């Protein structure tokens, strides 16, 4: 492997030009569908669906809150699956999938906490209380920030992947605890409305907006995950070619 390194790292190890974009026809279609979905969600969530009898306009925050938290859970589950598969197969694909998904999960979980706090301030009267759902949520959030921090500790790709896979598997245990916290302990947060209930206590356009939000955010997640994975893959190739370049450079220096 004596490929000369380019300063920008845009050539792959084999010397063939690396892709200049992470987009493909499939992701463009997915992205367009997501955009249309978001537009529809805005129309139904903000204009068409009526305000709630008790919550008034703030129910619209929940059309974001439930989808963002659902995507975050899904993302963390994908991370756990990727972590388990990495420990079994030891392939870069599963490691990068786990890491990409965790990053998106953290973003969506952070959004969930933010829009939940806004809703809480208006409805409960407080932004935050150390009640069971919120406490377990904070623990889950910090655990996945921890996952990203572990990922940032310099190590060989293999060591890093193994460390992260262990964290990714341990962290997912908290999701059922967060989800069931409203049933197991007393708190401020309301019980589940959609997941785990046979008869959701929400109807009409309110229910439609809620389920539309879920669908749209799932599309958004798929779109983000594919792109993030491709970026991670290219970053690995760039790091490899950078390393090869550095070695070649040192050999040159030593030979002088």
């Amino acid at each position, binding site marked *: 492997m004596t490929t000369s390194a380019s300063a920008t790292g845009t050539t792959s190890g084999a010397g063939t030009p690396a892709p200049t974009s992470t987009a493909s026809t499939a992701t463009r279609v997915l992205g367009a569908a997501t955009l249309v979905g978001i537009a529809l969600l805005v129309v139904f969530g903000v204009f068409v669906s009526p305000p709630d009898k008790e*919550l008034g306009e703030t129910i619209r925050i929940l059309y974001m809150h439930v989808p963002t938290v659902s995507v975050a859970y899904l993302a963390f589950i994908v991370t756990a699956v990727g972590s388990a598969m990495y420990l079994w197969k030891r392939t870069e694909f599963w490691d990068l999938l786990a890491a990409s998904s965790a990053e998106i999960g953290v973003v969506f979980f952070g959004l969930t906490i933010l829009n939940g706090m806004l809703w809480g301030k208006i409805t409960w*009267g407080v932004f935050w209380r150390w009640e069971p759902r919120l*406490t377990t949520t*904070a*623990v889950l959030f910090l655990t996945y920030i921890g996952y990203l921090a572990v990922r940032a*500790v310099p190590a060989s790709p293999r060591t890093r992947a193994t460390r992260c896979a262990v964290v990714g598997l341990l962290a997912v245990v908290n999701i059922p605890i967060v989800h069931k916290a409203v049933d197991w302990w*007393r708190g401020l947060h309301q019980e589940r409305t959609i997941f785990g209930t046979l008869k959701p206590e929400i109807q009409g356009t309110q229910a439609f907006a809620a389920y539309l939000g879920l669908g749209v955010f799932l599309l958004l997640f798929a779109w983000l995950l594919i792109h993030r994975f491709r970026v991670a893959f290219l970053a690995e190739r760039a790091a490899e070619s950078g*390393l090869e370049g550095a070695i070649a450079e040192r050999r040159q220096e030593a030979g002088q």
Partner: protein
Amino acid sequence: MSDAPLTGPHDDPESSDAETPEHFDLTPRTAAATSSSKGSGKKWIAVAGVGVVVVALAFVLFNGLQSASTFFYNVDEAVAQTSTLDTTRFRMQGNVVAGSVTTTSDGVDFVIKYKDAQVPVHHVGDPPEMFGPKIPVVLEGAFAANGKKFESDEIMVRHDSTYDEKNEDRVREADQDAKQRATG
């Protein structure tokens, strides 16, 4: 194995950098090459980051476990424990009794009820927007006058998992809590 410091032109990146400083910035270095010479600094920052997260987790768990086990008592439970609770601060849940709400100079007075127990409340401060008759609330404060009155300084409105329904149904949630306590 000798512990003598390396002085010659070895392929140790730091020593060669130190000896040929004029070469250091002239050749473009890639991210990987740079990180190998500054690796230990970056590593410590990352390890410190992991440490910060662990400390934050410990803080959250400590805070959470302190208040999450019994986030609130229902009115009947609080009344039954008047002597033990004495004047310590705690949270109490119940429904605001219809027709009991009167605005005062420094806040609001009302009666809070759960099952057969009810307690008059003096609240200091503005109640939240959704506060009103029949609404389930969690109050923060302490008993006064031997448990005959509750002095509150924070009202939190609970919302249940139903949407677009009438207020009467909200008593259901309070019943669910009672069941949770009975089974837990």
